[in-house]
């Protein structure tokens, strides 16, 4: 019996085997889940990588409940009284809060930002704003530093490259730390940093294609991709 079976309830005793201690993810790890039920006190997730179920309590759900069947990312908090995993969907905040934005750049048309040990790769409209002023935007890649220069994109001499270099100078001197972060509907990522710096990514594609991914740098780290990648 699984959550695909009519009448199945993950809360019923014996409906899911508890995960052995040696198979638990480390506390703080990001895990992929599918929403299987909604309740007044939170929601239930099927955690496909562990073939088990987990809970998300109401305070750990930012905004509206994600729809049943939708793919979500959670951060593993602890084990609840009934031996099921307890997770938070406020993983952007819990993962990135307190980390420092160290540098920004691009590889071809993929913008990247390094935040602590994480990287954010963006193939969607992006901007870094401070007090209402855009310091760096993805459309800056369209504008050469020198009027009429046709090879500026390949030569890394667009306004984006100039602004990134200026910004990296500030980021090297001053600490810009993530205060808070959230994913709004349809993948709108917002990170608020110290000194009123705000990073925003707005996915702008209905068709297929990655808009952004946030991942732990180094081998083996979890990748959160928006929109979620299709399964095999």
């Amino acid at each position, binding site marked *: 019996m699984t959550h695909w079976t009519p009448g199945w309830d993950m809360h019923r005793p014996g409906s899911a085997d508890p995960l052995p201690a040696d198979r638990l993810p480390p506390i703080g790890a990001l895990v992929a889940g599918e929403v299987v039920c909604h309740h007044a006190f939170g929601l239930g997730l099927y955690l496909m990588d562990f073939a088990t179920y987990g809970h998300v309590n109401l305070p750990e759900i930012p905004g509206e409940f994600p729809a049943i069947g939708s793919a979500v990312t959670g951060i593993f908090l602890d084990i609840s009284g009934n031996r099921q995993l307890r997770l938070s969907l406020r993983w952007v905040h819990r993962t990135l809060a307190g980390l420092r934005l160290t540098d920004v750049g691009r590889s071809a048309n993929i913008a990247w930002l390094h935040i602590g040990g994480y990287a954010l790769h963006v193939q969607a*409209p*992006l901007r870094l704003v401070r007090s209402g002023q855009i310091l760096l935007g993805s*459309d800056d890649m369209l*504008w050469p530093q020198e009027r009429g220069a046709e090879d500026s994109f390949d030569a890394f001499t667009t*306004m984006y490259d100039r602004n990134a270099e200026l910004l990296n100078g500030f980021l090297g001197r001053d600490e810009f730390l993530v205060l808070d972060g959230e994913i709004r*509907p*349809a993948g709108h990522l917002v990170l608020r940093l110290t000194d009123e710096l*705000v990073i925003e990514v707005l996915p702008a594609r209905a068709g297929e294609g990655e808009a952004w991914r946030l991942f732990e740098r180094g081998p083996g780290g979890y990748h959160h991709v928006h929109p979620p990648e299709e399964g095999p």
Partner: protein
Amino acid sequence: MTAVLIGCVITELRRDGLGFRDVSHRLRIDCPLRVTRGAEVLVGSYDTDFDTRATVVAGLTVLTAEVSESGDLTLELTDSVRLHVFPACSGPMRPWRIV
């Protein structure tokens, strides 16, 4: 200024702007945009088949228009549809304007 958009019926959406029925003004757009319904993107400026998908807003009416501190323009349309115009350029050019 955006108040003139309220009540307007959309005739067409293109990457460079929004046209309306029976009025002389249009919204010119020179930055990214997307159209959503709830958590679903219906069309966005990064879509290669933008013009085909953009027909989804034809005939819808503008209910509200809001401008954020960063210069975003958000139009709430009928049928629970939202158009978000998202400035993403540091330069002095205007990301959108009513002409």
